[in-house]
């Protein structure tokens, strides 16, 4: 089968519609993952085992099972108990929860990497807990996390095609729909690959920059 330039040009606008949704889902999903990850990290540190153990188990469970199945679950099973999420919302929650388990690890590592002497110095300076977090711990913990977190955003971007399974018309789904419609897989799939490659080349550059920018703290 030969590459058909005319067909390729014809489908690009439709694919671009998909790119918009893909980016939307990635950004929203990242925002959820950042926040959820923070909660996971804090809850898992809790001294109360009735909090830390179940949260730990939940994190392990979500990390150990496929996002695709989790999406099915959110989309097709939750309505049975009265929770009806729109496809994009279900997708964003799915991505956010799944990646939240990864980002929680990043937060944990970032916080653990702040030397214990800093906690002690803060106590000796008589700072309250919230002051210690805001002025001492987080300003040191966050910068080294940024490149790692950004890396997960890029991974998430590459997993958005899964949302096709719950009828979100993102890039991959647009491409499949086009392929189904015209009985041609070569051009849509290749173009999607090219889109992903372009975005990830940019993100590699961005990640390198972030790594250099935040390598040194203080």
């Amino acid at each position, binding site marked *: 089968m030969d590459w058909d330039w005319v067909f390729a040009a014809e489908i690009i606008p439709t694919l671009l519609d998909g790119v918009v949704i893909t980016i939307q889902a990635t950004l929203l999903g990242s925002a959820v993952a950042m926040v959820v990850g923070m909660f996971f990290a804090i809850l898992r540190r809790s001294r109360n085992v009735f909090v830390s153990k179940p949260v730990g188990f939940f994190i392990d469970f979500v990390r150990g099972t496929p996002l695709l199945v989790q999406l099915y679950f959110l989309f097709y099973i939750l309505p049975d108990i009265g929770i009806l999420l729109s496809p994009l919302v279900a997708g964003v929650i799915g991505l956010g929860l799944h990646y939240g388990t990864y980002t929680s690890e990043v937060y944990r590592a970032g916080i653990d990497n702040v030397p214990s002497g800093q906690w002690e110095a803060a106590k000796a300076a008589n700072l309250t807990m919230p002051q210690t977090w805001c002025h001492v711990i987080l300003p040191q913990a966050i910068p080294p996390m940024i490149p790692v977190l950004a890396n997960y955003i890029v991974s998430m971007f590459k997993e958005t095609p899964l949302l096709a399974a719950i009828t979100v018309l993102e890039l991959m789904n647009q491409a499949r729909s086009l392929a189904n419609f015209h*009985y041609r897989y070569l051009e849509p799939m290749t173009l999607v690959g090219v889109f992903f490659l372009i975005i990830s080349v940019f993100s590699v550059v961005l990640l390198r920059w972030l790594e250099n920018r935040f390598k040194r703290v203080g």
Partner: protein
Amino acid sequence: SDVRAEGDLERLKEQGFARIAIANEPPWTEVKSDGKVTGAAPEVARAVLKRLGVGDVVASISEYGAMIPGIQAKRFDMVAAGLFIKPERCNAVLFSEPDLCDAESFAVKKGNPLGVKSFEAIAASESAKVGVVGGGTEEKLALGAGVPRERVVVVPDPQSGLKMLQDGRIDVYALPVLSISDLLKKANDPGLEMFAPVENTPIFCAGVAFPKGAGALRDSYDKVLAEMKSSGEFAKIVEPFGYSAEAASLTSREKLCGGPN
């Protein structure tokens, strides 16, 4: 490519089975809990192939849209999934003579609250969303009638579509009559009903699809199919599934393709 094509049937005979694509959409195609492949389309294909000397069929489940690319990519030897014979598909593959016919129908909430009776009516309504199976005929009908892309929800498989109708994610679910009745029977949900036939849609007839170049195989297949139709064996296979054997005899591939294929 013709030299190789002559050998298609020989090859199938030798390997003892034919690889077919199905969709798992009863009563057209169905995988039983023990993994057995059945449904009207595979049963017809199985009977015809047996007469041609090919022992059995081995089925892979596939999206409708992926079937024709799959044939082109030589993933299957044929599609026996109740793929409707339509001119643009005739350009891409070779069809057998029609075997299974059905009209289009809508599954809707009880009492058809939006009162839609045609794809045009869906297009005209403000917000009605129609569910269609990816790559199926209904997707093209809906888009062709002017329903905007955002309101044509491509569901990944038949069962998901019904669930989405129940959950109110879509207002109308378009599939052939027999598919909808099977789904509704299984769901046993008094809140749903079927509307059929959909106005302004013809009766569609499906055939078995072969790759381009497998003309000889297709012709042998047609010959056996014709014999079975006249002997009444064909009716014995399809009627238990709810299909009319007669409907398939009233039309022909040439008519459905709008020319030779």
